[in-house]
């Protein structure tokens, strides 16, 4: 049984002008102990997709379709009360800006204790003890539980967030750009910590990032999103070494690689489409250097390239056919 199975998840935002098709037909699956990276540039819908999993969306967002199963149990129709128990116990999240993700007027320890006591019937004292242990695990001095978020540095706050995320032993952790605002060195530290904890606890992880390298360092598999849709999905190594979708290819090429040649790659021309009225056919066709007639007319179908590696692109169809 898969830890997490998402089928055709579709979430729109309702605006006065119409629906923003932020995330469409997202299908993902996650095994126990596996890490999957959801990569995409800004406004590609990756955060929407992640928040849709546990329905933490703004009010004007509507999950239009799709099923979400955790260990086979479908939670897409769960009530708010049921979801409350699924959150953190089954799926915990580490948010992007840790400064804003922690309540500024409450002590960090109390915020963790709270999470613990909601889900595990523990006494205050036991919860505090657990919190101290968690601090130890994320390499923060346990005495600092009585401090306020603003007294921590950025990296430390992200560690607090991690401690909080693992407090209830969740099965799945969603990391929403957990290292974006951090320096490379601190980023590496945090990623390493996450990696260690994940392996120790056999958690599944969904890592959302715009940074390909982060995926390279932590994820077993990667899903690339463009304009609200997944365009390619496969094992990290395969996707990096042999990207199937033109967008993935361009993205990887644009990434400065000190192991490669000193050479400035061409940027992808144009801008991402307006999701209020996305282009027909393949959403990437307007910016794709390899696009041909079919691309603008027909939505590309999923093509399996190798086991576990698939992409949505007409070119692949042609390649397969050839």
């Amino acid at each position, binding site marked *: 049984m898969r830890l997490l199975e998402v089928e055709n998840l579709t979430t729109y935002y309702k605006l006065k002008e119409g629906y923003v098709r932020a995330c469409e037909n997202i299908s993902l699956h996650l095994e126990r102990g596996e890490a999957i990276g959801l990569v995409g540039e800004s406004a590609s819908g990756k955060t929407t997709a992640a928040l849709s999993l546990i329905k*933490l969306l703004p009010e004007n967002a509507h999950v239009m379709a799709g099923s979400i199963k955790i260990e086979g149990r479908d939670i897409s129709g769960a009530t708010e009360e049921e979801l409350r128990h699924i959150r*953190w116990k089954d799926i915990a*999240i580490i948010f*992007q800006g840790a400064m804003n993700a*922690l*309540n*500024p007027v*409450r002590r960090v320890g109390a915020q963790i204790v*709270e999470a613990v006591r909601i889900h595990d019937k523990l006494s205050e004292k036991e919860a505090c003890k657990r919190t101290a242990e968690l601090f130890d695990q994320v390499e923060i001095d346990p005495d600092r539980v009585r401090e306020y978020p*603003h007294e921590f540095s950025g990296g430390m706050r992200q560690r607090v967030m991690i401690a909080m995320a693992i407090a209830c032993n969740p099965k799945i952790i969603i990391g929403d750009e957990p290292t974006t605002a951090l320096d490379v060195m601190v980023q590496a530290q945090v990623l390493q910590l996450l990696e260690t904890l994940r392996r120790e606890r056999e958690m599944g992880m969904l890592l959302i990032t715009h940074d390909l390298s982060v995926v390279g360092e932590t994820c077993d598999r990667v899903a690339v999103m463009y304009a609200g849709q997944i365009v390619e999905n496969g094992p990290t190594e395969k996707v990096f070494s042999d990207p199937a979708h033109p967008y993935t290819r361009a993205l990887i090429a644009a990434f400065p690689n000190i192991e490669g040649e000193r050479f400035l790659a061409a940027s992808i021309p144009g801008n991402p489409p307006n999701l209020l009225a996305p282009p027909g056919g393949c959403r990437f066709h307007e910016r794709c250097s390899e696009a041909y007639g079919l691309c603008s007319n027909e939505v590309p179908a999923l093509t399996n390239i190798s086991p576990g590696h698939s992409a949505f692109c007409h070119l692949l169809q042609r390649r397969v056919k050839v």
Partner: protein
Amino acid sequence: MNMRGYLLRKFIQASITIFIVVFMNFFLFRIMPGDPIRVLIRNPKISADALERVREQFGLNESRLVQFWIYLRDLFSGDLGTSFNYRQPVWDIVMERVPATVLLIGTATVLSIIIGVLLGVIFAWKRGTRVDIVGLSVSLVLYSMPTFWVAIIMVMIFAVYWQIFPLGGMGMPGTFYASAWAELTSQLRYMFLPTITFTLILIGEYVLIMRSSLLEVMREDYMLTARAKGVNNRNLLLKHALPNAMLPVVTLIAINLGFIVGGTIQIETVFSWPGLGRLMYTALTNRDYPVLQGLFLLITIAVIGANFCADILYRYLDPRVKS
């Protein structure tokens, strides 16, 4: 910065503010048209000697700078001068009126904060619904009404038309009460209209501030974190949203004191409530400058003091201020 440094800084700031107010208070009253002696002595037929005596008594024969110095010196010894009208120390006159005003302001403020915050929370929680829209509109209307006008309308309805509440005052002097309970209910009856009017006036702003503050807080990332943690709605509100959303309200309460004082003048005038506001009004109509000056100074110091307390409270409520 440590607590002591913070306190010291705030204290120095408050002191400077008070000094500026004292300065303004002194010189403002020296630019008034007309000789204060004329106001002081209603009898224009007074011998030159007597006139000089009064001048001296009120220190008006000295140069302005000397007068300012004397004024400061007297202030520090708690002497606010002598009322032109009552011929008594301003301090005594003012202190006599403090309890009535504190009772009125205190009750109305507490009531309006409690109800206002509560309603603000409800409207914010139900934002966009009919409850919210109606509530918001009513709050804005309340916020837009002249205080005295509401008071007049209340009197007209409840005391003149229906006659279910007394017209004004703090009680009918010389009344014997059958029991303590009777006295209490009678007191409450007299307090009811002014308090409710004042509460109505104040409530609007608290509702608006609380609502918008809470709405803003609910958009914060940490609220998302809390929801993601599985915190239920009640705790989401009580433990996460409110402590943050109350911060602007605390500031508002202190800043509002100045406004509340303005409100008392109107309420007390309409309801004949024997407090500081009515004292100020009569002092104005009597041109009793020492009383006006003293009142103004004391009220301002009280407001500055309240702001000082609010700063400290704020620091206590918001750990971020400490660094």
